[in-house]
């Protein structure tokens, strides 16, 4: 059964149609990347899924039940990290657990465990301003994972990071995904990032946002399933630069680039027309 289903979802803000006719199915444990030109309604899509706003028409099903509001079955990772600056790294991860009613002592243990998962052991007592951008986003990811949501919603989480940090976090995210088996919906405007991370890449059109095409991405040797508890997830296949410079990777990138190219041109045209009015 599909984990998440969008059925004819439409979202308007006044006269402005942000999303129109979105039909989408996401399987449980799947890693879906949504890529599109800026202002195409990617973030609106995520807000709807996160229950932060409601569709104008159509509906979104999660485990077969319509989404009516936010919930701890979905964890959101924001581009701006959204860390509480007055709390330490550990305190920020605990923050996610406080909403769940986990007892205090267990919270601490769980938070420590998840900071370890994102590679931040030893940084528990640092405040966000003492951490680099990449580390802050790791804390945010740990926070979202700690309360164990089924679905991880990521809104351009690596967009504010420099290229090297971004690539290392991409690897980390894939590793975490394989280990935890979460369903991930990842929003980005980066084509490389989409190809590198996704099992499926949904390309969106510019305003109103529609799903133009869904491109399944697979690289021969790379394990494409979340290998939870099977013990087979150790062989990760080609990674990093090796994968990025492979001909298959280039082919996918070009395919998505072509799909996006027209949309970006159209979006810019639209913006120009609007600006001149």
């Amino acid at each position, binding site marked *: 059964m599909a984990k998440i289903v969008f059925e004819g979802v439409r979202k308007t803000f006044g006269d402005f149609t942000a999303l129109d006719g979105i039909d989408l199915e996401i399987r449980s444990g799947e890693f879906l990347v949504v890529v599109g030109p800026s202002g195409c309604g990617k973030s609106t899509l995520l807000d709807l899924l*996160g*229950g*932060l706003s409601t569709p104008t028409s159509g509906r979104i099903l999660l485990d077969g039940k319509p989404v009516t*509001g*936010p*919930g*701890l079955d*979905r*964890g*959101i990772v*924001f581009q*701006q*990290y*959204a860390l*509480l*600056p*007055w*709390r330490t790294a550990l305190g920020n991860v605990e*923050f*996610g657990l*406080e*909403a769940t009613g986990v007892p205090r002592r267990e919270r601490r243990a769980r938070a420590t465990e998840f900071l*370890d998962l994102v*590679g*931040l*052991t*030893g*940084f*528990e*007592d*640092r*405040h966000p*301003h*003492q*951490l*680099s*951008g*990449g*580390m802050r986003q790791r804390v945010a990811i740990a926070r979202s994972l700690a*309360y164990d949501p089924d679905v991880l919603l990521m809104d351009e989480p690596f967009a504010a990071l*420099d290229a*090297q*940090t971004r*690539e*290392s*976090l991409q*690897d*980390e995210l894939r590793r975490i995904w394989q280990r935890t088996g979460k369903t991930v919906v990842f929003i980005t405007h980066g084509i490389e990032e989409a190809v590198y991370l996704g099992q499926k890449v949904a390309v969106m059109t510019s305003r109103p946002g529609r799903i133009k095409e869904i491109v399944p991405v697979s690289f021969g040797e790379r394990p494409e399933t979340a290998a939870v508890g099977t013990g087979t997830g150790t062989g990760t296949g080609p990674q990093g630069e090796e994968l990025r410079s492979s001909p298959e990777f280039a082919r996918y990138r070009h395919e998505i680039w072509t799909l996006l190219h027209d949309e970006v041109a159209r979006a810019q045209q639209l913006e120009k027309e609007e600006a001149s009015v």
Partner: protein
Amino acid sequence: MSTGTDTAAPAVRPAAPAPAGEVRHAAPPPRPAPDAGHAVRPARQPLRALGRRLRALSLRSAAILVLLAVWETAPRLGLADPTFLPPVSEVAAAWWELLGNGQLGRHTWASLVRSFGGFAIAVVVAVPLGLLIGWYRPVAALLGPLLEVFRNTAALALLPVFVLLLGIGETSKVSIVVYACVWPILLNTISAVGNADPTLVRLARSMDLSTPRLFQKVILPASVPAVFTGIRLAGAVSILVLVAAEMIGAKAGLGYLINASQFNFAIPQMYAGIVTISAIGVAFNQLLVTIERRLSTWRVPS
């Protein structure tokens, strides 16, 4: 927070598996240096720290010492009329005398009760009210212009109104202090709530946090610095307004002491009162700064 784990743990476990690309951006792991230094040369470290602190102290007090020196010498050299500006040593003697005969204590006590009382009432009223108004945006928009009018009406201009309504006793004096202190706290609190990072609010919402929880865990801590700015302003205002009020109608208080001394041509006593007031102002502000620091250690050192 136990300092033991703070310093020891990260040194033993270095940056963990932070991948290569990121290491350079990471803040360096906590410097073990100061602690190691302590262990090796226990004697020199505190001495050097003491020296540094003394130097800082002398630098900070230099300007004040110069002021005092000028105050002492100018009247003696005839640069200022000693009748109207007696040398600081005479003022100090008068201050000592006022302290000895209990007058200074009595007047200071009267002033402190009024100004701290009014200030405390203002804090207790204005902070919760500000949080409430700030949270309900339409209310903030509705009341905003009105609050601006009140804030920009000099409190002392309303003193006659207060006296008219509440008489010349303690009530009117404390009330004017409350009135003057409420505005900076209220307006700062309202804007603090309004300026709370929207991403944090979205985060809390996405986690399905209830409104009271959101308030307690996100809005309140995020507002502390701005609220404290308002409270510090109010602290200064409370003394300022009170002294003026005491000059107009009072039988005790530092404002009265200053005014009465001038009236009786007891000029050194007048300056003694003024010096006491500025000392109270500085001390009060320092106290509030300390509390503020304590509450917002997490802030980026600026």
